[in-house]
């Protein structure tokens, strides 16, 4: 193998990174919820109402070995009284084939706006929780997680 000049090495590296990013764009699979699909699903849930940040906590381990069964806990700050309570909490994701995960409805007897469940994640991505309050307002919280073995790994 012939010896590289430093400048040649650098340009080759530039070419390689360029090619790699082009490949990433080209491979980005169609059968996945895109960012806008998630936004659309959230908009469908809120019916276009504005969403306030904060007050909603999504708890998922940040580094996940497998996306097949991911423990997820959502809690919303609320006194849960008949006058001021959480009506619904919806979970959304960025990159699964469908943007929705689940929509939870709480009754007056719930006591706390808290739910724990297990979900599937097809890739490292953002998970968003949107809470609908009894006064008609919406609040949201999100978490970004890294999945090393995605839920849909057996698909490819």
């Amino acid at each position, binding site marked *: 193998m012939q010896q590289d000049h430093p400048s040649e090495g650098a340009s080759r590296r530039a070419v390689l990174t360029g090619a790699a990013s082009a490949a990433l764009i080209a491979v980005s699979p169609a*059968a996945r919820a895109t960012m806008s699909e998630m936004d659309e699903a959230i908009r469908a849930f809120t019916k276009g109402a504005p969403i306030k940040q904060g007050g909603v906590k999504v708890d998922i381990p940040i580094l996940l070995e497998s996306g*097949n*069964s*991911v423990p997820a806990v959502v809690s919303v700050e609320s006194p849960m009284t008949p006058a001021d309570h959480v009506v619904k909490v919806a*979970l959304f*994701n960025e990159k*699964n*084939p*469908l943007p*929705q*995960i*689940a*929509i*939870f*409805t*709480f*009754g*007056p*007897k*719930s*006591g*706390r706006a*808290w*739910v*724990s*469940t*297990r*979900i*599937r*994640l097809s890739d490292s991505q953002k998970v968003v929780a949107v809470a609908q309050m009894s006064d008609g307002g919406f609040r949201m919280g999100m978490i970004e997680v890294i999945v090393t073995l995605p839920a*849909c790994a*057996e*698909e490819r």
Partner: protein
Amino acid sequence: MARALVNVPAKVKRGDVVEIKVLISHPMETGFRPDPNGKFYPRDILKSFACTYDGEHVFSAELFPAVSANPFFSFTVVATQTGVLTFSWTDDKDQTQVQTAKIEVE
């Protein structure tokens, strides 16, 4: 259809916020998983789950394929009286299954 494990604390004090755990045995086939012939296994998921306390709504969920196989839910209820918690879930074929658990309030 599906078997379920329900965990309700045996004895609770009046007014306590009690954690209920439900684990339902179900494959939750997403409809996005290809079979060896390149077709997709048909979607078969539980699409809804609900819990009532003496007939009063406590918690319910609308489910999508992103809920794991063998769906697990944990949520809370305010223990007001000795009564019956009724859990029900419906699959894609509109079959509904019901399970009950007693809650004893001191």
